């Protein structure tokens, strides 16, 4: 610090944080999708993510071509989504949100257990064919993989937004999210919509699972990514896709900045709780989150 503040380094930390924030957003969007349409905080999202990544990597290791493995995993994730809707969600219709949350907690135990029982518990490495090497932009080093991941996440977000905006199914989603009873009254079939949403969440889990799996290695701790997405949701509001994106970027950037500039003073390792503390402090000022509905949930 002798010759003043290193701004290039600050920019590097900031950009690295924003890029990893995009990956948080991706997981958070899976939550928002389900919360908006069925009012469930789906804790099993992390387990779905683990399941997808583990299935894909195991298929590839058994010699299947990339595209085929992706197709099979895709089909499995849709099937899993449908199965969850049929066996867990439908019998729990009209139960309080807390009950549904606890059911997804139980569900995450089942999915994690089954995934590891079938595919084993060892750590797999996942290659997506994108090198993880730094490239230089105006004196700032950025990882190519981070750029790729951010690109994929951005595409996902655009595709989802377009889907919600321009398709009939998307319109039905928004109707259900807006007013479930009115949607039922005009003849929308709720079970079909839920099944679609859960399948879509499965697909998001697949994309997020592949990106996170390539970054961290495919293993049990992958399902803990869900814990990274929760503060993002608290910050952005559980029901706002825009909130999930902005919240993810904010949390990603703040976390990296805190780890680099604050961490050394308290002995490091603060990333396990810093995001939560930041989200909480923010909520004390604005209880509705960044873009959430003004009425914060009646429990």
């Amino acid at each position: 610090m002798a010759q003043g503040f290193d701004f290039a380094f600050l920019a590097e930390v900031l950009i690295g944080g924003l890029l990893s924030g995009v990956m948080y957003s991706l997981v958070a969007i899976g939550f928002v999708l389900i919360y908006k349409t069925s009012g469930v905080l789906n804790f099993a999202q992390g387990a779905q993510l683990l399941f997808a990544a583990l299935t894909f990597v195991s298929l590839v290791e058994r010699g299947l071509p990339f595209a085929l493995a992706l197709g099979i995993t895709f089909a499995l994730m849709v099937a899993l989504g449908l199965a969850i809707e049929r066996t867990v969600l439908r019998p729990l219709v009209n139960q309080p949100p807390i009950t549904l949350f606890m059911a997804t907690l139980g569900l995450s135990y089942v999915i994690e257990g089954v995934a590891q029982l079938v595919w084993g518990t060892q750590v797999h490495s996942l290659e997506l064919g994108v090198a993880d090497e730094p490239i230089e932009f105006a004196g700032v080093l950025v990882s190519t993989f981070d750029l790729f991941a951010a690109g994929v996440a951005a595409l996902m977000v655009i595709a989802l937004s377009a889907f919600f905006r321009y398709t009939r199914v998307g319109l039905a989603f928004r109707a259900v999210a807006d007013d479930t009873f009115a949607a039922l009254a005009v003849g929308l079939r709720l079970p079909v919509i839920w099944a679609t949403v859960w399948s879509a969440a499965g697909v998001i889990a697949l994309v997020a699972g592949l990106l996170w799996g390539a970054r961290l290695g495919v293993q049990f701790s992958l399902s803990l990514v869900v814990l990274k997405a929760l503060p993002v949701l608290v910050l952005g509001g559980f029901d706002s896709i825009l909130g999930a994106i902005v919240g993810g970027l904010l949390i990603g950037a703040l976390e990296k900045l805190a780890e680099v500039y604050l961490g050394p003073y308290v002995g490091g390792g603060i990333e396990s709780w810093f995001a939560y503390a930041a989200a909480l402090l923010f909520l004390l000022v604005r209880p509705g989150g960044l873009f959430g509905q003004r009425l914060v949930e009646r429990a």
Partner: protein
Amino acid sequence: MATNTVQRSGHPGHPARWPLWATPVLVLALAYGLVPLVASDYVFDALLIPFLALSLAAVGLNLLTGYAGQLSLGSAAFMAVGVYAAYNFQLRVQGLPLLAAIALGGVAATLVGVVFGLPSLRLRGFYLAVSTLAAQFFVQWALTKFGWFSNDNPSGVIDAPPLAVAGVAFDTPAGRYLFALSVVAVLTALVWRVTRTPTGHHFIAVRDNELAARVIGVPVLRTKLLAFALSSFVIGVAGVLWGFVYLRTVEPAGFNLDRSFQILFIIIIGGLATLRGAFLGAALIVLFPLLLSRLGSLLLGQWFDSGVLELCQRIALGALIVGFLIAEPRGLAALWERLVARCCRRPAAAHGA
């Protein structure tokens, strides 16, 4: 153990001849009189003592989640605060009696619980549940990071002090069981008493409809903080039992998120807002892995190694939770009530007529 608190006096499960105090007295008589005579050291160490510690933690969480309706995912953190605080009081205050150290451990957990309960004044539902995760991660980090808490042990491990009250040592498995039993009995009785006071009714009012509670004059903010305080105290003492009486050597990693979920699962399986449910749920959670491992090695033999067992336990536990939520959301306590009602149908019918 303790009787159901939201019980109405004319309930079919409780014929008039069976007074309210009879069940707890009977259970305590068996627990003090019969169990020490018949149980082996293994049963004390591997079943009864963890059962008691987990039951107490579940009683504490039930107060917060079952009665006051505030979902918490950070119970293990409050257990950790309890045991680490008790350890430090015992270590740093000369001649402090064990019971005082345990109570101070509970008080420390209370303080931390109130701090992390503050967001409940502005947040509800999932937002609050997520914010209790902050307690979980922060406490675990602080206990690992700052050596002072574990008397500068490099991995944060602490060893329990000898269990002795007024010169009487509780160092045999049976002795430790009796020690834990006494602590659990006293605290459960206190919690039961609280649920029957106006404060307890305030908890339920806040849970059922916060706005309505405010309208009829319940001090909502104070009630919520009080729920956090009482619940954290009980969970903190449960943490001391877990560390000092059951494991004897603990590290911060033992109080991870899975432990918090375990306690939440106990009250889901046992039944929310019943004290009896906390004990029934804890019994199931303690027995379940043992039964599963016996059953697994019986059916599958060699293939059923410890890795497979752990995964099967995870799957079965998850399935159990989902199953209970779908089939009997009121948990084991409701099943128990139905069973009792069936057994006593005739006297109950006579009473009704």
